């Protein structure tokens, strides 16, 4: 027990903040991109939809390290796109926090997209038609009718996206590396201390992640439970 207190007192909390920051940023980006992509997919013809779907779901099916490999190829400063970003915008992705965010976004995005799409596909087309005959623009119908009606699906997509982004390891370690205080996320910290045989510190970090996970899910359920009154109970 004393040992735990001692570790907690001396603990470097930076992995927590880096993970939270990364998770929030990646969820924020995925939320809008995912809904946007879902809207495109729902409106597309079946063949187009299959293509969009395949590409957007790939990062979820691929091993994260394989996704990390592609990201590394894309953003490496020795490659055209990476050097372009660096020279034109002074943006460094590899070995930076931006790399953390990009890796987490790419891996977690499909969860947002797929959940949003599934929720939108469930929506009664008559709601869209009704909106149109009432003179509402398609964009307005989308944000005031479709998104709120698809609310529960979108909310659960957001939770899953956040959870996935928070725990991302494989692609992050390849793209952003594990630089303590800058790109060292909780997952990477756990892996690192385990390698040193420090099970106690690893256990403490595992405990912290679990608390966060429970808190987030509890919070989201609370919100969606309040807002989704129109949905019947079983």
């Amino acid at each position, binding site marked *: 027990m004393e040992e735990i207190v001692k570790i907690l007192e001396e603990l470097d909390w930076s992995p927590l903040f880096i993970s939270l920051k990364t998770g929030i940023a990646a969820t924020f980006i995925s939320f809008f991109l995912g809904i946007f992509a879902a809207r495109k997919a729902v409106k597309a013809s079946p063949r187009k939809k299959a293509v969009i779907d395949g590409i957007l779901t790939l990062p979820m099916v691929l091993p994260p390290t394989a996704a990390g490999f592609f990201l590394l190829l894309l953003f490496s400063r020795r490659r055209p796109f990476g050097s372009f970003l660096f020279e034109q915008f002074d943006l460094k992705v590899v070995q930076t926090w931006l790399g953390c965010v990009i890796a987490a976004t790419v891996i977690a995005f499909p969860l947002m997209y797929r959940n949003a799409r599934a929720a939108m596909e469930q929506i009664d087309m008559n709601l869209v038609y009704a909106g149109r005959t009432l003179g509402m623009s398609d964009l307005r119908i989308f944000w005031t009718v479709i998104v709120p009606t698809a609310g529960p699906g979108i909310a659960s997509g957001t939770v899953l996206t956040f959870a996935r982004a928070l725990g991302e390891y494989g692609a992050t370690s390849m793209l952003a590396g594990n630089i303590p205080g800058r790109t060292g996320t909780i997952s990477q910290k756990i892996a690192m201390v385990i390698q040193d045989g420090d099970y106690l510190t690893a256990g403490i970090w595992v405990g912290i992640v679990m608390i966060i996970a429970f808190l987030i899910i509890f919070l989201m359920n609370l919100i969606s439970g309040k807002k989704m*009154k129109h949905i019947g109970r079983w």
Partner: protein
Amino acid sequence: MAVNVDIQKQLGDFRLDIRFKSSARRIGILGASGSGKSMTLKSIAGIEQPDRGIIEADGRIFYDRERRISLKPQERNVGYLFQNYALFPTMTVEKNIAAGLKGSRKEKEARVREMIRKFRLEGLERHLPGQLSGGQQQRTALARIMACGPGMILLDEPFSALDMYMKDQLQRELSGMLEEYPGTVILVSHNRDEVYRFSEELLVIDQGSIVAEGETKALFRDPVSREAARLTGCKNFSRARRIDAHTVEAADWGVTLTVKREVPEYIKWIGYRAHDFVPVWETGGNGRMLPFTLEGIAELPFEKNYYIKTGSGATVCWFVQREQEHLLDEKGMPLFLAFNEDKILFLK
């Protein structure tokens, strides 16, 4: 006020080819499910696109393939009442009503209040659609449509999901609410009672095209085509052979009928409504009446259905309302069923 529709659309094997012109205020479209009646309505509203043709309403062109005109549904100013009402489930009653409104906040609020009052929705402003009864939902949907001041209203099977009691009540309510509405209203239904009750002019659609049209009551009296007769509720059909201007043979029933009216040249079928038979207890009706060979009886709350086997093997239905049943109780089963010649339908 006039509607001019002339549209064609191919959907796999199904071909929609609808042409009609009407200046009636209340138009009914009667057809079985899958006949293309809903597709017609959706094309008028702009929710579906025909392949070619013209749609015109009150002098405004909604769609004209040749001139490459196709107004968006938002521009057509047509109110559409969906079967399930399509109320926005996350919006309250007042938000639903305000959904399509333009203008300043004040104007919108005033308009919503006016609609709430007019459609008796006071006290339900903050309710979600899921918390409303069927009647309240219908009133909200109609208030939402009326708030926008539509130039035309389309009703797409508004009652078919309801039970009989609710149906009657909501039909009365809807007719009442539409009473003052000056524009054209088109009702689509598969239910003959609904269209009979509602429409001044009636179109009967079968397999994508119009098989009969005209003033509603006249069309029920004389449906002209077999499909129209069937959809307006006629149960009994026989192939017909015209013998002369006043004599026709109903081949499937084994009877020859003499009428004062002229039998049209086009006649292919004879139709006779199941309620219109006259029971006969005396002998001697051979050749002009149906011999009463009972095949089966079905008992309903307010009538009895008798199924009669004819000489050729065809079955004829005779519906007897409860008030008349005492005759059968007193006299027993009739020997013949006679035809009232005014009620015989000559059909194409």
